[in-house]
């Protein structure tokens, strides 16, 4: 009769216990990944549970320490400068930002902040998409959005990816607004966070189409890669990684 839990497995679990018993945390959470969410005049808070889930997955799957609850701030808030990762999402039109919001967001992005923008309404030329493009043209007029090439490091910061799936797959590519060599804004029109969102009962709130659950997993992986890019920049473009990554791409 076989033992359902082997002795070796038990011993390994016991040996691993101290590793978890002394888990440490950064001082005052400053070094931990805490997503900030941009408050604006539209519907900005539809994906808070998705962000929490993403943070949880980030901690579970990687070495990154997180605080899962997102912090919401107006775009004019100086508190944004304590949270270098900002999520800007919305359904429907994005109302025009105030001059103070534009200036604050411009400083935020210029001096090192990263923003993930997400059209929760999966719009293209209307709704959130129209408003977001309009406001980005005000925030960074000299740095227009451009298609993110599939060779970008975001597709290999942790998971090896070749698509930019979200809740839907309306647009196959992400868009990027670069400041120098750094991607300061990544924009998805596929409701990326919609694939992560959970309802109050703990179930995923939205169906993922057309790929179903595998596509949801890809959306999580893309979210984790985006977070890893925000944290590690182009680390995976270092020469030391290239041979192995190229081998895996084959």
């Amino acid at each position, binding site marked *: 009769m076989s033992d359902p839990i082997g002795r070796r497995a038990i011993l390994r679990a016991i040996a691993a216990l101290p590793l978890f018993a002394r888990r440490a945390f950064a*001082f*005052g959470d400053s070094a931990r*990944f805490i997503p900030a969410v941009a408050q604006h005049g539209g519907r900005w808070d539809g994906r808070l549970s998705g962000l929490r889930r993403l943070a949880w997955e980030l901690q579970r799957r990687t070495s990154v320490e997180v605080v899962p609850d997102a912090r919401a701030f107006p775009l004019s808030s*100086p508190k944004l400068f304590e949270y270098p990762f900002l999520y800007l999402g919305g359904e429907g039109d994005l109302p025009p930002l105030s001059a103070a919001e534009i200036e604050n967001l411009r400083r935020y992005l210029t001096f090192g902040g990263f923003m993930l923008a997400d059209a929760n309404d999966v719009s293209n030329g209307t709704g959130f998409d129209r408003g977001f493009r309009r406001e980005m043209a005000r925030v960074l007029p000299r740095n227009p959005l451009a298609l993110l090439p599939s060779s970008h490091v975001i597709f290999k910061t942790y998971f090896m990816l070749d698509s930019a799936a979200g809740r839907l797959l309306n647009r196959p590519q992400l868009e990027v607004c670069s400041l120098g060599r750094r991607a300061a804004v990544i924009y998805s029109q596929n409701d990326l966070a919609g694939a992560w969102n959970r309802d109050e009962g703990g179930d995923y709130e939205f169906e993922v189409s057309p790929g179903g659950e595998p596509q949801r997993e890809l959306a999580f992986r893309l979210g984790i890669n985006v977070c890893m890019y925000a944290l*590690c920049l182009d680390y995976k473009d270092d020469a030391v990684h290239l041979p192995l990554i190229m081998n895996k791409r084959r």
Partner: protein
Amino acid sequence: MNSTPFNAWKLVSLSPLSPWTLGLLGALLAAGVLLAAIGLQREPELRRRIVLWGLRIGAGVAAAFFLFEPGVRNLQVAHVKNRIAVLVDRSASMNFPAVPGGKSRLSEVADYLESVSSQLSALQDRFTIEYYGFDPELAPITPQTLRSQAARGPRTDLLSALRSVKSGEQSTASKKLSGVLLFSDGADNADLAAGVAGRGRAALVDYQVPVSTFVVGSQGLKDLAVEQIKVDDFAFVRNSIAVEVEIRGRGFKGQTVPVVLRREGQTVASKSIQLASDDEVHTVSFNISPDQTGRFVYTASVPVFPQEVVIENNTRSFALKVIRDRVRVLLVVGRPSWDERFLRGLLRQDANVDLVSFYILRTLSSEPQVMSDRELSLIPFPMEEIFDAKLDTFDVVIFQNFGYTDPSLSVALYEKNLERYVHNGGGFLMIGGDHAFGEGRSNFPVLGQAMPVEPAGRPATVDSFKPRLTPEGLRHPVTSFSQGAANTEQAWSTLPAIPGANLTRVKPGATVLLDHPFQTLDGKNAPVLALWEYGRGRAMALTVDSSWYWAFASHVSGSPSRLYDRFWGNALRWLVRDPDLTTLTVTADPPSVEPGKPIGVVVAARTPDYQPAAEAEVRVELFSVKAQRSVATQRSTTGPDGMSRLEFPPPEPGAYKILAWANKGEKSLGEGEDAVAVRAVGPELSDASVRADILEQIARATGGKAYALAQGSLPEIPLLDPPVVEVGRSKDEPIWDRWYYLITLVALLGTEWLLRRRFGYI
């Protein structure tokens, strides 16, 4: 009144007209004669043609006399003697024996001049014979002085000596030179060192005085010499640099010769060569990789063999400045964090930094939810490669919140390597976090020896605070952002508070630049930024994981701040010992000195806030690497620019360190170090060869002849002749001013007119 009669004359023109006018009128005259000839071509009678043309030519000649006013210049002249210069090489190589075991080359010349003195005297009815030696300055000599005074010239410059003797600066009379008799071994080490070519040859061709050369010495000497070393002036630390050593061997056919390259006494490379002929130059190439920045004296040497004519040229030293290339930084990150992200962003954009980084992206507890590792972009943590094989290639190693005891991530096996790396000159920086300074699972019992702080054994503080500059921090180049302590303090005050710090104790001997304003340990404020020198290396500890606040949170408002960039830039420069971050610099000027020359030293002193330290007391020691002791000391005071220049008398050949200290009042301004190579032999004695080829080429280029030195026989020497004539007095007498010249002219023209009229031309 001079009663001496005129003894010479010459024909001159006394016309007051300008040469241009005379030329024009002469042309008109020629045209008149020519036109007459053309006009007479149709004359069928030859006699008429001859008569008319003869009359026109005669008239033209008479008119020319009229125009040019010829006269006789009576001259009183004196015949003077030209000079012949006997030029003897008195460079140090003339002390070498002319033949193995024989007299010196210079004595050979003295003997020769005595043996041909009567033949030279025979020339004195036409020439003045002048005797000069050059070393390289020209000075009168006699055969006796050649014997009594050893040759001592530090170099041989044949062309310069020839120019000097031609200019006649040393001659008592301004007489022209008819010839030069040059006695030398031909071992020129100036313009003609590479042979008579180019400008040197052009100068000799223009010399216009025949130089007859007499080669002194023979090629039969035995000598082994480090003839030349080819190496760049500077090298990059830990990069390979080629050193090419040229060994010249004479009389050592078949001999195996070991060639050794040493750095200040320590052998860094050696090779053996075999000489295939009796006169051979063999190039030995060494590739060395200096492991430290600074200036170092290297010496290439070959052994001294019996019967060598010169033993001093068996070694040759050079000073090599080793500078850093791009700063090569290894960044090891325990976990992605904002602190890492901003530091990486800064290092990546710095063109002077070559960043190699490894992040722990996944731990044993991570569950990436993948079927295969091929779905992940992760690579194994190459600990052996970076902490063993390639550790010494890095200028700085940074542990950022890194400290694991997990077997797959622990660096316990390599701690000794890291500690030795710092001790041997590397830079090490540990940045705080929940995996550093005893927090979490971090534990570095061996590497910790190199750190300026040690874990306090207490949990990290999580209260926000603004780090406080210590008095040392106000002045230290890592934390001093501006000129003056007040400005630095003000700059730090603008930075935002940061949340929390690891608690550590500072070790004795370490310097704390930033401390915690209210968190104390053992009655002292907890260090936030501490550093020290460990062995030959440097280590720094920053006990916070939120320095990124200085880059990002500081930009909430106001103008852009570069304090974060400057802080980290300063920290890296200090860790790699950037020379610009020392308060005292000492420089040997030049870094390699010929024998017998003094050693120049320039000292630049700065105050701790990097202002020129005027009136600072400077002490400089010349430290012999070979004797391992100080051989001379100089003291001085800096000027208003903080600079001081000193000079040491010529020391023995060898490698020397120049050690400098400076004080301003009771306060030390630090110490500095440089190196200088004092060569055993200069170019003159490094080569005992006889260059008969150069002497032959000189003779050929100037119209002279080349001879071997044959006692008692003065050959037929090419000389310029005749001697020069000098004018003492003159008097002009016109010869045109006679009435019959005019009558003749008129008569000729008149006759021609009459005949032309008769013959029907008019």
